[in-house]
């Protein structure tokens, strides 16, 4: 990846993080998990997905599914920064005047399918992928899942089935931020060795730093990895990435901050001292 592209994407990711921080006021959002997948979504929408913002329903498009729907602030921010939706729509967050809420839905242009209940979209994506195979089309399908989401048995069922049907046009991108809602994955339902598990289910697996655009470009550039196998990219990420005061705490999952706190968080994002999160405005769902 050339320097220019890398810089452009880095700047875009910073802007997306600003959107996420703003969405954590006035009712809150799932801030920690949204911050971990920013580079993944920014990379896909900026560089990889064959999407035309003026023709989102083009049948030649690649399909992107956000299965860990609570990360939608990262998607909202990306859709604004790529010009697919107006920034002003985010001001309607949690108002019944629009459809901008805690999980994605198709009233937002650029959202392929709704989500929020975990472990659904690997199967929906497999359905799309199998049809593309049936029709001998070249569109590609990517699903972002969480790592906690991998607890759900439906994820593993869909991988068994997708491999049975040789869906190498399907890629599962795992936001491996090491946390589920309340605690570290390895302290609750251990996932490691994760790559081995996916391989045992018949997938072709890569693992990379999910905040590094160069590595993302390399991994996505080499798809499909093996004929007839579902591709898995395990992206090692940091929950709360960019905000040390969020990164440091296991319980910063769903947060509802005051306007004042978000101002401090924005400053923290731009390199000043960690924000003083004084009030316990935390709500964990």
């Amino acid at each position, binding site marked *: 990846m050339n320097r220019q592209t890398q810089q452009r994407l880095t700047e875009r990711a910073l802007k997306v993080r600003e959107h996420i921080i703003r969405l954590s006021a006035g009712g809150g959002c799932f801030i920690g998990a949204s911050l971990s997948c920013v580079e993944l979504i920014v990379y896909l929408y900026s560089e990889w997905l064959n999407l035309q913002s003026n023709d989102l329903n083009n049948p030649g498009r690649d399909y992107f599914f956000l299965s860990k729907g609570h990360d939608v602030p990262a998607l909202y921010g990306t859709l604004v920064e790529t010009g697919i939706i107006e920034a002003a729509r985010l001001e309607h967050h949690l108002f019944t005047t629009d459809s901008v809420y805690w999980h994605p839905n198709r009233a937002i242009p650029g959202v392929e399918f709704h989500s929020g*209940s975990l472990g659904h979209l690997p199967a929906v994506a497999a359905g799309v992928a199998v049809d593309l195979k049936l029709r001998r089309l070249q569109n590609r399908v990517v699903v972002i899942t969480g790592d906690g989401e991998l607890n759900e048995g439906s994820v593993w069922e869909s991988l068994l089935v997708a491999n049975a049907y040789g869906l190498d046009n399907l890629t599962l991108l795992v936001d491996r931020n090491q946390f589920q809602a309340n605690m570290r994955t390895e302290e609750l339902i251990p996932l490691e060795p994760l790559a081995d598990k996916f391989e045992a289910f018949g997938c072709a697996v890569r693992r990379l730093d999910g905040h590094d655009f160069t590595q993302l470009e390399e991994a996505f550039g080499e798809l499909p990895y093996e004929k007839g196998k579902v591709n898995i990219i395990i992206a090692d990420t940091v929950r709360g990435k960019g905000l040390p005061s969020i990164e440091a705490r296991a319980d910063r999952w769903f947060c509802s901050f005051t306007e004042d706190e978000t101002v401090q968080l924005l400053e923290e994002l731009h390199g000043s001292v960690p924000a003083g999160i004084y009030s316990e405005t935390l709500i964990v769902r």
Partner: protein
Amino acid sequence: MSYEQLLTETALKDERVVVMTAENRALVRNMGRTLGNRFIDTGITEQTMIGMAAGLALRGRVPIVHALAPFLTMRAFEFIRTDIGIANLPVKLSGYIPGFLSDGNGPTHQAIEDVSLMRGIPGMEVYCPADEDDLLKMLPAVWASPHPAYVRINHTKGEWEHQPFEPGKAETIAEGRDITLLVHGFLFKNAQRAKYLLEQQGFSVGLINMRSLKPVDEAAIIQCALHSESLVTVEDHLLTGGLYSIVAEVLLRARISAHVIPLALKERWFKPGLLTHVLDHEGFTPVQIAERVVRELQTVKK
């Protein structure tokens, strides 16, 4: 006293109790510390949690299980019906943020068909507390019963001191000649305020807290139908299968014809947003409830 304190007390007194969650810890944040290995968090695995609860119940335990209401009642539905229902095991289901309480989460998180689904399982009891006081009054009886039960958890602070709880009994707050509001769960408070607004307009208004939906208090429903001109069912649930359906079934069985106004969600999910916005958008503020009732009454008179 909070839900968690009552649960802790109950579990410490009765070693049959096992507290489980599919990583929804909002109600059981400290149980790992207080209960040790009788607290089991299965991760984000509602079906496995329910299956394990059945296994624990087979061994004589009373599992009290927790998850968001939609995932508990719908993701794991067939496991509840098959592993708990068919075997009639005393597993206690605590569904969090049911109905409007899922506010800004969206349709994926809206349990507005949970009453319908759970009451469709033979032997399953269904309870809908009006507020925290009501919840804490019903739980000891619900947890002590030998039957499976679903509680539509609502621990919002209320303004009313509820009467003692008895399974199968409604709580009559007031009787009214013109209108009786039948309500369950979170909308109790708004129905109570709507009652006041309607009374200001000269109506005689009754209010019944339908805290026990299965078994349901048939006598209370029949009593209201016989002594009140109109009944109003108020619920944050789909019209199909909830309180309105229950009232209709009871009256039909008793061959009683009544004017019933259903205030419910009709064939759609509600518009997500912060709770106050949701109530306003869906027409369930006290003023809106009163207005909708008056409008319906005027239609009938014409």
